[in-house]
């Protein structure tokens, strides 16, 4: 385990001093180390640099290339975009997607605040219950949960059966194929993200601030609105941008639970490629969706920092 200690003997004549320690910089040392052994190799081909170059190459070929080629293919013939927008389904789908994604984002924020607050401040037992339910749900795949909502929201599903049995309604309400079903299904998938970002931000609020506000005579509701909400706003907004962007790219939930008339952009694209077999027009529509996502992220990133939206700030701090 301590094999690297061995060469110390060879170096006893030159004691490392402060300067050398601080210049032990990954950019300079590898070069020296390599040069002493063999002919110099460029940094990007030696040691860690070689691994990194290979990894960058992998991402370029396996991920960036397909997206880039699709974009080039779509842009190479402007007719693709003309055809894309001449489809009424697609034009409507843009508005449907943006409108429903915004609604889902608002629902997620409203639902997440009380949940995150209790998660951050309640007794241990309650925290464990809330965390377990949230995480089991979070790790159940979107497809499986959407399937489950289909079972529950059916005319013969549990919710309708129970409501009829309890006399709340006389006959089953149609819930499948409505916007309500999509909001429910999507918020169920996306709310954990806002809960977790708001929770992380709330944990950072010192309890003393709330106590101080209470001592000064604030009611709990006032403490919530004047202390908790302003101090957790950055986390909430970052979570909201993330959730909005994720909602824009949804396919499974609106396709299974939503109406056949108001389709999502994702559905329009899949239809174009798989049913109409016009891949290039589908590619053009995919480029439009990608642009909407990138513009949202650029605007959100300008005010909140892109690292915060993608959860990278925590990776850097911890």
């Amino acid at each position, binding site marked *: 385990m301590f094999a*690297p200690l061995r060469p110390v003997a060879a170096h006893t004549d030159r004691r490392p001093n402060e300067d050398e320690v601080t210049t032990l910089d990954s*950019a300079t*040392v590898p070069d020296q180390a390599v040069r002493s052994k063999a002919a110099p190799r460029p940094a990007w081909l030696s*040691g860690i640099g070689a691994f990194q170059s290979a990894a960058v190459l992998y991402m370029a070929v396996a991920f960036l290339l397909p997206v880039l080629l699709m974009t080039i293919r779509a842009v190479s013939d402007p007719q693709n975009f003309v055809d894309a927008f001449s489809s009424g389904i697609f034009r409507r789908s843009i508005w449907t997607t943006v409108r429903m994604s915004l609604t889902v984002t608002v629902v997620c924020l409203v639902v997440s605040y009380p949940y995150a607050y209790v998660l951050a401040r309640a007794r241990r037992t309650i925290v464990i219950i809330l965390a377990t339910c949230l995480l*089991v749900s979070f790790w159940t795949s979107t*497809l499986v949960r959407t399937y489950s909502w289909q079972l529950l929201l059916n005319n013969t599903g549990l919710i309708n059966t129970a409501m009829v049995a309890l006399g709340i309604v006389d006959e089953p309400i149609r819930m499948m194929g409505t916007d309500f079903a999509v909001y429910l299904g999507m918020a169920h998938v996306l709310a954990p993200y806002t809960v977790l970002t708001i929770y992380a931000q709330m944990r950072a609020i010192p309890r003393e601030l709330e106590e101080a506000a209470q001592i000064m005579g604030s009611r709990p509701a006032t403490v919530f609105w004047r202390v908790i909400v302003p101090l957790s706003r950055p986390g909430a907004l970052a979570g909201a941008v993330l959730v909005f962007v994720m909602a824009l790219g949804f396919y499974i939930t609106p396709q299974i639970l939503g109406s056949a008339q108001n389709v999502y952009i994702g559905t329009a694209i899949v239809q174009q490629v798989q049913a109409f077999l016009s891949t290039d027009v589908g590619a053009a529509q995919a480029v439009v969706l990608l642009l909407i996502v990138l513009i949202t992220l650029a605007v959100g990133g300008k005010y909140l920092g892109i690292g915060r939206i*993608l959860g990278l700030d925590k990776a850097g701090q911890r």
Partner: protein
Amino acid sequence: MRPRFGVTALAILMAVIFLFPTIVVVVTSFGSGRIVSFPPQGWSLRWYAEVFTDTMWVQAFGNSFAVGILAAALAMAVGSALAIGATRTKIFPASLVTGIAMSPVVVPGVVLSVGVYMVAVRTDLTGSVIGLALAHAAVGVPFVFINVLARLATLDKQIEEAARICGADEMTTLRTVTLPIVAPSVVIGGVLAFISSWDEFMVASFMNSPTFRTIPVVVWGEVISGADPSTSAASTLITVISILFLALAAGLPRLRNRKVAP
């Protein structure tokens, strides 16, 4: 300030709503009738027997496993190389490396699917474990990258410097100091990458062929065409395997620390 009773009750109600769909799927999988009903009329394990014997399900599970393991292994290698590179070398700017590593989070699945499909059709990679695993690995990279980056941020750079002063070259330091320290994070990232592949539907549906379908693609087909309780059984298995893997990975670093502690 402890949350008030009303707020706590509301949160617990929401917790039940979060958990409920998972419970419904699990419970319906043990039903005995031919129709999925909640609560079931009777109880049986016949739908699990069907999932374990029906070629369609068995093959789909096999495909998903093969793709997931391959994708996770690739994502672990690529993700940790990017994270270590971003913090330890200056060949590429760190922001560029971070951008490349995180790009799969930003690009919607539908968009990636169309791109991957267009490339796969020309390279004859549709309907193959390799083709799908290559795409899924890229999607899994951010999970590994974030976890390894977080671990590297807490790592005292002097430990690596000490190794270098003691005469270890760059690769020896990487192999004997850096990698063992970040290994638990690499594994957690790898498990998350596995689950992301295991659950991934969009790219898998574009890459499927009559002989090659992963579990989410088969489940989707069943849900669209009217599911029977075997769909619930398969869904339960998907979920249990995901959570089992996560629990194992979450327990791993603690086990390691315990062993190291005197």
